[in-house]
């Protein structure tokens, strides 16, 4: 996977590493993609809130 890592992207507001970037790196998933995506998005939003918290005092 390391060789496929997307190095340069601008995450849209509300995301840090959008699922579409991660999906591009992972390629075809063996199981249910939607389950993986949903939980990825939740943790990504948490990380986004933590990062932006520091400038929203």
């Amino acid at each position, binding site marked *: 996977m390391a060789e496929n890592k997307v190095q340069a992207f*601008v*995450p*849209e*507001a*509300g*995301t*840090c590493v959008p699922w579409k970037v991660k999906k591009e790196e992972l390629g075809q998933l063996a199981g249910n993609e939607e389950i993986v995506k949903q939980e990825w998005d939740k943790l990504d*939003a*948490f*990380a*986004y*809130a*933590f*990062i*932006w*918290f*520091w*400038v*929203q*005092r």
Partner: protein
Amino acid sequence: MGGKEQLFQERFKRYSVAMECGKPDKVPVVFPLGEWVIKYSDITLQEAYYDVDKATAVIDGVLKDLDFDVMFGSINLWWPPMFDAVGCRQYKFPGIYFEADAGFQYVEEEFMKAEDYDDFIANPTQWLVENYLPRVNEEFSEPGSYRATVALIKGAAGFAMHNGKTAQVAQKWSQEFGIVPYGTGMTKAPFDTLGDSLRGTRGILLDLRRRPDKVAAACEAIVPHNIAFGMITSAGDTSLPCFAPLHKGAYPFLSLEQWDKFYWPTWKKVIEGLWALGKRVFFFAEGDWTPYLERIAQLPDKSIVFCIDLTDAQKAKKVLGGRFCLYGGVPTTLLTYGTPQEVKDCVKRAIDELAGDGGFVLAAGGVVMGDAKRENIEAMLEAARQYGAY
């Protein structure tokens, strides 16, 4: 349904009707939670900041005999253990830096330099991670090191722990006392995000003269982030408004021309963006916003709750009344320096002048200070019930 659940629903309806500019059964009244509560307890401010459970127990004792609808404010807005874990340079708390009964302090610096504008504008979130966080937090200063990695784990864990605890406490107060929180989530005006935390007051004032185009472009870049941050921190809730503490938009910090050019356009976009998603903004207009009322009236009907601090209340009623819920009526200084009778007279006057046709919430005009008097807070709540029936 009965008991506290029914009480919660009655109060929630009262507040909701007012936010929709309607006339509820009574004028909703807001309890201003703040550090003044600790003054009447046997714990120190340090204990209150660090130990959410101790602070909650103190607040429980204050709340149990009071009749109000909505609670605003917090003692544990900033949870020091998280800031200690990352070595934060921005905030100083009692315990490490001050004596146990001192309040916290914010230390403003130019954590974003003038030469950082282009990189920030190009990719704000990545710039924050790679540049801002290591500058603001001492433990992150060598990214990838043992200390930085451990601090990042602890910081994120602390953030989650405190958010979870805050949500638990709000739920407990709803269930045990029928209290409605004033809002959910937080956002800011892009100019304040830039001027408060990134460039600092000195930096942004110089930038308005030296690099105005960069200021405007940075504010534009922040707009979608402040919409997203408001929704994420609201956890999707659209029934209560999103808190927006507004600092550098108060008159006369900026000239009218600067306000029109740098402050209002992007702040208006954030409000309209949130409203398009169904989220109302708690327009916490600290200071005087009188000269801007006509501009604020350009917003979509009911998209904000306008908080009156030093703004001319009668003019706010004339310009915004009927289209936007008004909130306030009692100056915070009166709660510190006034007498209970003066507070009651003020409440009666505010209700007479502002509440007549609904769309009004009786509250302190800003954040109530640590030296407010308990008897004045109680007088405010009592008078609101005495004079606030429609």
